[in-house]
């Protein structure tokens, strides 16, 4: 959690510096090109964070903080740090004057869950290395998230995109592909859905 706060602080500082001086224009790439808010999708009940286009508009990286309430006093609410790498090909289906559908959006996601409950398994005084063959705190996944892109006439907020995400994470992949389970399970059993909004500034 402290790392996330530090990261947010550095971003704020960087934005402030960029606003103050022309000589720091070289650092303008630090300014996020969008802000993303997501519901569910295995990265938190709600996940919020900035994103940046890299290389061009086809590639995008996003970092976010996920929050998930836990309805029991024995555990604290869950905070996770998330990273997403999204690939959006130029394929677009025009739906109206100012909105279109991007049917092919794919990506890779990583999520780290903070808190002792999820990280104590790396404490070698309690668990010898490899006691659990996976790392309970770190998850990797792949997603498909087609979006409807709505263009605005606003100079700052160029577009708003609504997306629906289907993802499969490492635990699901292990469960589906291991131990001959494919006779009993299917993709739907181990996949997750999420939905979100991208506020695009570029």
């Amino acid at each position, binding site marked *: 959690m402290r790392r996330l706060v530090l990261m947010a602080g550095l971003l704020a500082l960087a934005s402030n510096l960029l606003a103050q001086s022309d000589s720091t224009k070289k650092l303008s790439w630090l300014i996020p090109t969008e802000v993303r808010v997501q*519901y*569910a*999708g*295995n*990265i*938190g*009940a709600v996940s919020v964070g900035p994103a940046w286009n890299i290389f061009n508009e086809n590639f995008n990286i996003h970092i976010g903080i*996920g929050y*998930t309430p*836990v*309805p*029991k006093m*024995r*555990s604290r609410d*869950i905070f*996770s740090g998330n990273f997403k790498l999204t690939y959006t090909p130029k394929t677009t289906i025009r*739906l*109206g004057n100012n909105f279109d*559908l991007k049917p092919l959006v794919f990506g890779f996601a990583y999520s780290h*869950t903070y808190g002792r*409950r*999820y990280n*104590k*398994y790396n404490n070698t005084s*309690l*668990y010898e290395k490899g006691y*659990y063959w*996976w790392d*309970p705190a770190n*998850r990797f996944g792949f997603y498909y998230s087609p979006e*409807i892109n709505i263009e605005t006439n606003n100079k700052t907020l160029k577009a708003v995109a609504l997306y*629906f995400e289907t993802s499969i*994470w490492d*635990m699901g992949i*292990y*469960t589906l592909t*291991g*131990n*001959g*389970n494919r*006779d*009993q*399970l299917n993709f*739907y*059993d*181990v*996949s*997750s*859905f*999420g*939905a979100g909004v991208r506020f695009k500034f570029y």
Partner: protein
Amino acid sequence: MKHLVVIFSVLVVVVSCNQFDHHPYEVSRHTKYNNLNLKSIGALNNVGKNDTLKIALIGDTQRFFKGTDRVVEKINAEKNVDFVIHTGDLTDFGVESEYEMMHEELTELDYPYLLVVGNHDEIGNGDILYDKFYGNDDFSFQLGHTKFVFINTNSREHDFDNSTPNLSWLESELKDTATYEQAVLVMHVPPFNGDFNSGKEKEFVEIINRYKKTLLCINGHLHQHAYHNPYNDDIFYLNTASAKEQQFIDLRIWEGGYKFELK
């Protein structure tokens, strides 16, 4: 606009499918299933004092869906099983979706089943999920001539903090010998394993010997069938195989004795 309406309608249908997983370690406010052990105990048929109990023992089903399916088929082919005991590690990752899926696999059983909590079932928020799905970690019930005592022995998952196993609870269950004829203990981690709190091992063994009514200990965790008395006393430990082996133990218990067969 029509497109948006269609997409919104699809989303509503999808949402109703309840597949919006918030987080791997989420605990739903209202889990799909609850108090499963209590419900299974309520579903047990009455057994007379002279009857022989027929119990199927399974364990460590963790992510072995195919193996579990085969074991369920084998048990259903048996007649007159009183109930099934699962010796823990229902799940591999201890997450809610896995609790649901493996329970749904076990609902294919023609007989009620009871689960003792395993170490994998307590990973992350798994301990909370076990309580929500199955009830208390430590519980007991009597069926005919036998008292069954299920106890959480996953000391490592509780940081060896001396809370697990709860020996004062165990003693309170065994000491009133006038209320039961014989006791069978069910646990996941056996006391001779490194995941059991070694500081509690001696006392645990003393307690189950002290009242002279413990007939048998049943455990999982080791993933292979075994039958032995590691402390050279009268109490034997019957280890269940994992679901990977596609085996179950057919256990018969009567007043004063038992026998078993690996199937």
